[in-house]
């Protein structure tokens, strides 16, 4: 009986683990191996040691892509979380047609980000300048996507438009865990409005806040579809995200080895940020 159980578990685990190793671990190792070569994606290649990594840190284009990606992730995370909390408070208050509103506000999340990107591309290129022209806002008369200093804002808006939907739903489920009598007790002590939110509501939904932070930062750091649909990294490489650069130069630009090194560094960055975030939020949660 006991043996049957043990054998069954092993027979389940081994093949599935093998599948995982085959299509996750091995490619990961191959990626690391390629990062020490000058492989172009085809033909012969040589070992170059740490050459790619040294070049990586002096490569202006790579540096620029890290700056852009981090700027996008930080700003979009803040924007998304502020809007989501406000929206969740609104959607959690006693209003009519609550179910309809929740469903409608979640809609952007289920749409494919590539298509959403194309739609907003048109909006930024034709609609927004025409509107600005009508109202007379000089700064928006030309498409923001064609300006190296403003294109990232367009990308940020599109990323936020979709991410708000997801984060709001998570905040709503957080708000639903706050018992009604907490507010009643707080009300007696004079906690209303901002005070109530700051000292009662927010501390109680911190676990949901940390889920949203992790979700946001991770998704925005890996941004790809929106770049593909909106700017293709332009203008003047001002919106090249790390993923997009690795895809573009690694897959078709003959930099397979060099971009593998970039990907390895990117992987390490993701791990450090994720671990730091988890450490930080778990220490915050313990304090409560």
């Amino acid at each position, binding site marked *: 009986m006991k043996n049957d159980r043990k054998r069954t578990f092993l027979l389940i685990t081994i093949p599935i683990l093998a599948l995982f190793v085959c299509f996750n671990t091995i490619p990961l190792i191959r990626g690391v191996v390629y990062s020490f070569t000058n492989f172009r994606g085809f033909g012969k290649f040589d070992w170059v040691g740490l050459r790619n990594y040294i070049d990586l840190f002096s490569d202006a284009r790579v540096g620029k892509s890290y700056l852009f990606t981090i700027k996008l992730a930080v700003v979009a995370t803040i924007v998304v979380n502020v809007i989501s909390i406000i929206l969740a408070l609104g959607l959690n208050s006693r209003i009519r047609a609550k179910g309809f509103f929740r469903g409608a*506000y979640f809609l952007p999340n289920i749409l*494919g980000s590539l298509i959403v990107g194309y739609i907003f591309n048109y909006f930024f290129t034709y609609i927004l300048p025409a509107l600005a022209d009508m109202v007379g806002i000089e700064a928006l008369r030309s498409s923001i996507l064609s300006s190296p200093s403003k294109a990232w804002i367009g990308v940020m808006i599109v990323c936020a438009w979709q991410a708000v939907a997801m984060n709001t739903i998570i905040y709503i489920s957080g708000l639903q865990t706050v018992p009604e009598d907490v507010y009643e007790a707080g009300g007696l002590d004079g906690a209303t409005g901002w005070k109530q939110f700051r000292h009662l509501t927010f501390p109680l939904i911190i676990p949901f806040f940390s889920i949203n932070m992790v979700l946001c930062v991770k998704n925005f750091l890996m941004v790809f579809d929106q770049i593909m649909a909106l700017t293709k990294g332009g203008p003047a490489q001002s919106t090249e995200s790390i993923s997009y650069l690795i895809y573009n130069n690694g897959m078709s630009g003959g930099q397979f080895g060099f971009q593998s090194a970039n990907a390895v560094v*990117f992987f390490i960055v993701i791990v450090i940020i994720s671990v730091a975030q988890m450490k930080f939020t778990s220490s915050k949660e313990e304090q409560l």
Partner: protein
Amino acid sequence: MKHTSTVGKTNRLVLVLLILGLSTIAFPLYLTSVIAFKQPSEMTNSISGILSLPKTWSLDNFREAMEVTNFWRSLGNSLLISVLTVGLSILVHSLMGYALGRNKAHSKFYNFVYLFIVSGMFVPFAILMMPLAKQTAELHLANWAGVIILYVVFYMPMNIMLYSGYLVNIPMALEEAAKVDGASTWTTYWKVIFPVMTPMHATVAVITALAVWNDVMTPLIIMAGSGENTLPLAQLNFQSQFGTNYNLAFASYLLSLIPILIFYLVCQKQILNGVTNGAVK
């Protein structure tokens, strides 16, 4: 009752704000729909020319877009990949979640395997894509079958975590009762545990389906040479053929959004529940 009247007032204000906020979601969809139905000649340069309702509600753009992008073929591929991935994920990931979840507390080996697979969540696709493009080509898997295998591997960390987390709440007594009746572990799993995990199957199905349906990167990297498209990939690959005919392009975008919109309208409740469970658990 002064208290209740102020509550009523603020809520009416909230309602108005929520309706206004909804325009940020409705506007892009409105824009897409009206442009998709218009003829290029109706698209004057003024804003009213773009945003006004089309003169006739003709389906010509859609017909042409279907032809240009081989719509039914791409839709078929998307459906095939999504349905098979979801089905396989539920079977494979629940089994693995069961094996690991039941053993990781008292076995170092299973605990290691669990942590090993779950830490796969941190691996960005960017580091895997170049080696995987090579590897799938070597294995003759640069096609929809390869894409499905990769999805089953990519979503494994997340789904296994969900399943083994859910198992904690399923008492061992349930399995032991079946064992007394002489059933093997394998039969017990399918007859007792698998059905009990139905709520988790729904969650896994929803989050996996949404992620797979909208994914661009994996099919882009893996299926590029196969001449086949998924729905999002078709939009990307035919972008140049749309040229400046935005009416055709938007008809195509709208077509590719319709299946998921219908799915959302029909299963909105399950989707909202599934997504929340997946994120919060």
